[in-house]
């Protein structure tokens, strides 16, 4: 791990701190914890921070001096602890998001179950109890990439694209889940349907989910879904993680 973490400049926008070459749980936790630590420093030059799967991005007004200074500061901060072993930041939320698995609402549950070597009932039983974390938010506003599921869910994206899945779709590939923000074509398999809106412009909480939040998708019936389908919160319940 001698090459990691790496600090690289991002055009004229800032610096990127990358913790690993590919996605892993510890590298994702490190990126989340490091972003929280940068925010905590309260450096006035920093205009925005964000994370992707295994990196923290620090945006600031770039100049030669500013890059040199910020690189030194980030290197010092990196050396203060083992970021791969660092606890996740405080203030996170655990969400319970009611989900219809399979049926005509989510027609690829059986296909995904088969690829994972399970029968559909066993797949639903397992998925409805799996707790996943928001690894990153991207592609569309508020749209979470969540993981990681158990290794037998390491199923590839399908070769062809599904023309369109609706907002609130729960889709799966490569041990990860996504709740789609907007109707979208996708190569991921549509295994569940929620009424949860991940982006609510104009509301008090436009982005309900933050990177690091955790989610469980309890199984509900079609009848229960019809009752909550017009509610942008999708019947979700939340509790603070401490």
């Amino acid at each position, binding site marked *: 791990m001698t090459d990691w973490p790496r600090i*690289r*400049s*991002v*055009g*004229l*926008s800032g610096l*990127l701190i*990358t913790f*690993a*070459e*590919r*996605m892993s749980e510890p590298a994702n936790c490190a990126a989340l914890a490091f*972003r929280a630590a940068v925010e905590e420093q309260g450096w006035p030059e920093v*205009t*925005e*921070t*964000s*994370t*992707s*799967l*295994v*990196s923290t*991005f620090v*945006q600031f007004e*770039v*100049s*030669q001096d500013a*890059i040199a200074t910020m690189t030194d500061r980030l290197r010092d901060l990196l050396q203060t602890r083992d970021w791969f072993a660092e606890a996740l930041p405080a203030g996170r939320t655990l969400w319970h998001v009611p989900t219809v698995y399979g049926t005509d609402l989510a027609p690829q549950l059986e296909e995904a179950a088969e690829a994972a070597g399970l029968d559909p009932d066993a797949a639903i039983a397992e998925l409805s109890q799996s707790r996943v974390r928001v690894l*990153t*938010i*991207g*592609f*569309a*506003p*508020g*749209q979470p990439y969540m993981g990681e599921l158990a290794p037998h869910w390491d199923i590839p994206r399908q070769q062809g694209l599904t023309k369109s899945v609706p907002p609130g779709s729960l889709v799966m590939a490569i041990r990860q889940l996504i709740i789609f*923000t*907007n109707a979208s074509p996708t190569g991921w398999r549509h295994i569940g349907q929620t009424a949860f809106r991940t*982006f609510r*412009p*104009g509301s008090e909480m*436009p*982005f309900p989910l*933050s*990177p690091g939040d955790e989610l469980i998708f309890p199984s509900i019936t079609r009848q229960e879904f019809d009752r909550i389908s017009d509610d942008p919160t999708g019947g979700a319940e939340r509790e603070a993680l401490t």
Partner: protein
Amino acid sequence: MSAALTILQAGPAMTIQDLGRPGYRALGLTHGGAADPTALHEGAALLGQDPNCAALEMAGSGGSFEADQDIRIALTGAQMQVSIDGEPIAWNASHLLPAGAKLTIGGARDGAYGYLHVGGGFDVKPVMESRSSHLAAGIGALLQSGEVLPLGADKGGETNLTLPRDSRFGAERVRIVASMQTDAFDDATRARFTETTFRRDARANRMGARMDHDGEGFATGGQLTIVSEVITPGDIQITGDGAPFVLMCECQTTGGYPRIGTVIPCDLPIVAQAQPGAALQFAFIDLDEALAAETRHRADLAALPKRRQLLLRDPARIRDLLAYQLISGVVSATADPFEEDKT
């Protein structure tokens, strides 16, 4: 009572835009805003107001409009055919649009995005502190015929002012700097990239603009294994088929395609305003040169109000010359010019 502008006939892709909505990258939302922010600064300079005032962005072609009161307007960005009640008026200039007169804006002639600014800006309801539509995110919508747009209060000012035409229209050279994955492309590929003259593909919108060229693509060694990373507008990503794609103001916040470089912010309007088929060439510059260019650009924007000039009009072309009040404001030869100050 504040004024309103009615869209009599909407063009195919008109939206309300200001300078955008920064600060939400971590939550998956790029800043958006006008595809050509320089045009917003020009409109603001012409009307003597804040560059963040919301304007109407018209992709490809405009539409027709009518105001319910006399209002001040300015037209910037790509030159479009424009007239008031059939009388051609100047682009890149401010004008008075009389109540009930029909403003007609046609197709773009030398760029992709034209802008209609109004005194006081369009006062549509802000979403998260910005009035910009962000269609990819589901904020706002394409404007439709029959819509009535409210205007903010105009503190007033001159009209018939113009600004010199900016060099970004029809420019070919686009300056880029290295970014985090530039090293993933070998020297020969980077050299070939800067030596290639690209043509802007017809597939271009507020999210990105694809670049066409003859010859092979620009792959990295490890094209498929790159983990998804932060995207900033201006990044040039190389998609699966080896074609470069310049990511624009409404792009995604993260992406897994490698970026060969990033267009410096002050040159991004060149790409935004390139017409389909327009030639573009990318040139790497170093950080110091890029920072100097950005500093100069900001100074140029700040100096725009000083570059305004009176719009010269040929009196022979003014159809209703006699209706104009030509002597308003003329100083009387007999009045004491200091008299007013004493009262």
